[in-house]
């Protein structure tokens, strides 16, 4: 059995619960029992089961009512209804309400095995479907990695060589350079590709939230912990965990992270059971971790544990030859998502975009293309549709003199109209400053 299937047995008769429990446990399933619907529903709040086997006649809430409630909580739950008194009406009702099957007690041993085997097959298919969907999305995203420049070719080579190993990787680079895409590409090319890649944005969470996010928590561990929750390390079992903005984590979290990386096991917040998980760590930062280590802001042992391989993603200004390719790609992507025909770009606009420095890197370029498509005439991307041209146009109404006047006034006000100090700050002599004050007609505000 690839994955341990969990079964919840709901029956008011102890002998039935015991019999089913023993039967399934011998088959290697994880089995829990509940004596009535109320208890079963409360168990389902804190734990999820793959299959629920419920008796139709129980004191209090009956099996059909419980089935409806379970389906309203989790529409894809597999519920098998058991009965000692089968009638066509109840069978039809159970199936209409979404029961997976309806069986009459006592069953033939072979029927029971078949029933569970069929349900397990459905679970496996559903899970495989989810994994494949994730994989398709992941592969779509990996295609976003575009670049013919030497710098990007070097990055691709590094991804290829590191992907098949289990080594930890630190991906460095300025904000917006595509560090997460590099992580996705490593995961998609690794042997872990059929398992999840779980991303955690460390900078967006407080210390306690990050702890609960990474390790999970038990019900009641803190105010608001109403349910048991799996942590990201647990979710990344057999897959990859991507820790973005790793430089932002607190010293306490650094210690805990180091321990988890070394033992590959951890305890949920408020729990006492050691949980093991087989994951690969990729992390990213836009800061210089080595200098943070030198300044004592980042643990040296954790740094060396994470920095087995370092991939540096170059900023866009260092690979200007990739800009036309990226523009072309983003135009296609954006037009497709908006269901519009692919728009051409005016040569002047393309030239201006190639000359721009992109402090926000590829993210800025993508937003720029999207904005130009949205605000443009719908036929062609024009120079005037670019945000940097707009900025320049909005300031072109003021002359150099206007700017000079404004700046001198600001300095004078800053230093309380002290001419000597203001002239020194403006790198002018006092006479020139007096002349400028006279020329612009500047006056000291009244106290």
């Amino acid at each position, binding site marked *: 059995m690839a994955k341990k299937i969990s079964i919840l047995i709901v029956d008011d008769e102890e*002998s*039935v619960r*015991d*019999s089913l429990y023993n039967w399934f446990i*011998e088959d290697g399933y994880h089995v829990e029992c509940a004596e009535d619907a109320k208890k079963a529903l409360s168990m389902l709040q804190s734990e999820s089961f793959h299959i629920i086997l419920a008796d139709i006649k129980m004191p209090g809430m009956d099996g059909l009512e419980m089935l409806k409630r379970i389906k309203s909580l989790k529409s894809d739950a597999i519920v098998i209804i058991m009965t000692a008194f089968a009638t066509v009406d109840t069978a039809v009702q159970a199936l209409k309400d979404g029961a997976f099957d309806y069986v009459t*007690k*006592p*069953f033939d*041993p072979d029927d029971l095995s078949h029933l569970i085997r069929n349900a397990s097959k459905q679970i496996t298919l559903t899970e495989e479907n989810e994994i494949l969907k994730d994989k398709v999305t992941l592969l779509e995203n990996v295609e976003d990695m575009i670049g013919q420049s030497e710098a990007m070719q070097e990055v691709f080579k590094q991804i290829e060589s590191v992907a098949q190993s289990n080594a930890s990787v630190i991906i460095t680079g300025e904000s917006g350079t595509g560090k997460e895409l590099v992580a996705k590409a490593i995961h998609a090319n690794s042997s872990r590709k059929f398992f999840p890649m779980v991303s955690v944005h460390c900078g967006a969470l407080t210390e306690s939230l990050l702890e609960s996010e990474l390790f999970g928590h038990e019900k009641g561990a803190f105010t608001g912990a109403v349910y048991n929750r799996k942590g990201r390390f647990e979710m990344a079992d057999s897959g990859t965990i991507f820790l973005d903005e790793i430089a932002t984590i607190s010293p306490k979290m650094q210690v805990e992270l180091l321990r988890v990386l070394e033992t590959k096991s951890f305890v949920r917040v408020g729990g006492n059971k050691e949980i093991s998980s087989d994951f690969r760590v990729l992390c990213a930062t836009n800061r210089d971790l080595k200098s943070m280590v030198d300044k004592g802001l980042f643990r040296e042992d954790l740094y060396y544990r994470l920095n087995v391989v370092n991939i540096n993603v170059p900023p866009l200004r260092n690979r200007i030859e990739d800009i036309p390719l990226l523009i072309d790609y983003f135009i296609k992507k954006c037009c497709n998502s908006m269901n519009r025909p692919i728009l051409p770009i005016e040569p002047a606009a393309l030239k201006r975009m190639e000359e721009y420095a992109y402090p926000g890197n590829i993210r800025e370029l993508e937003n720029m293309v999207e904005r130009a498509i949205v605000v443009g005439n719908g036929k062609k991307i024009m120079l005037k549709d670019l945000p940097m041209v707009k900025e320049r146009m909005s300031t072109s109404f003021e002359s150099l003199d206007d700017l000079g006047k404004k700046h001198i006034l600001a300095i004078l006000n800053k230093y309380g109209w002290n001419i000597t100090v203001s002239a020194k700050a403006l790198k002018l002599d006092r006479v020139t400053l007096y002349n400028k004050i006279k020329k612009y007609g500047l006056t000291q505000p009244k106290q």
Partner: protein
Amino acid sequence: MHLEKIKLISFGYFEKSLLEKIVKDVEQEFQLPVKTKEGHLDLSLFYDPSRRQYDGNRLLKEITNSYAKEQNKTLGLFNVDLFIPILTYIFGQAYLNGKAGIASIYRLRNERYGIFKDEKVLINRFRKEVIHELGHTFGLIHCFDPTCVMRSSTYVEDIDQKNHQLCHKCREQLTKT
């Protein structure tokens, strides 16, 4: 805990030669001394007249409470038809990782299925059933290997298809436990 022996307790009439043949194979599989003993139970207390069968759950509890010891693995052998409330019949059952189990020879006989009596086939089936239930008491779950004795069997034909030995994987598991 150090295990001392495996105890096979027969309830009802069993031919001595049949039990002797089984003992040897059980010893071989589990590498523990096997002792046989005759037990006495008023089986009418476990009879369900509505099903005309004997309650396997209650019998297993009785064997556990009255015959089994922590340092032994005990298996009750019966020649009556066993059931558990949710199933029409069982060949046997045991507590996973527990100290006791039960097995019945009743549904293993060819005559029950309108075929000529075959003592050799019967012994073969029974020793597989005994080893299978004892395997559960050692913590072994059902195995997917079609030749392994721990393969789940719902019909006698299923029992005939498997060997009376543990597969390599189950043996490894047994050695660990």
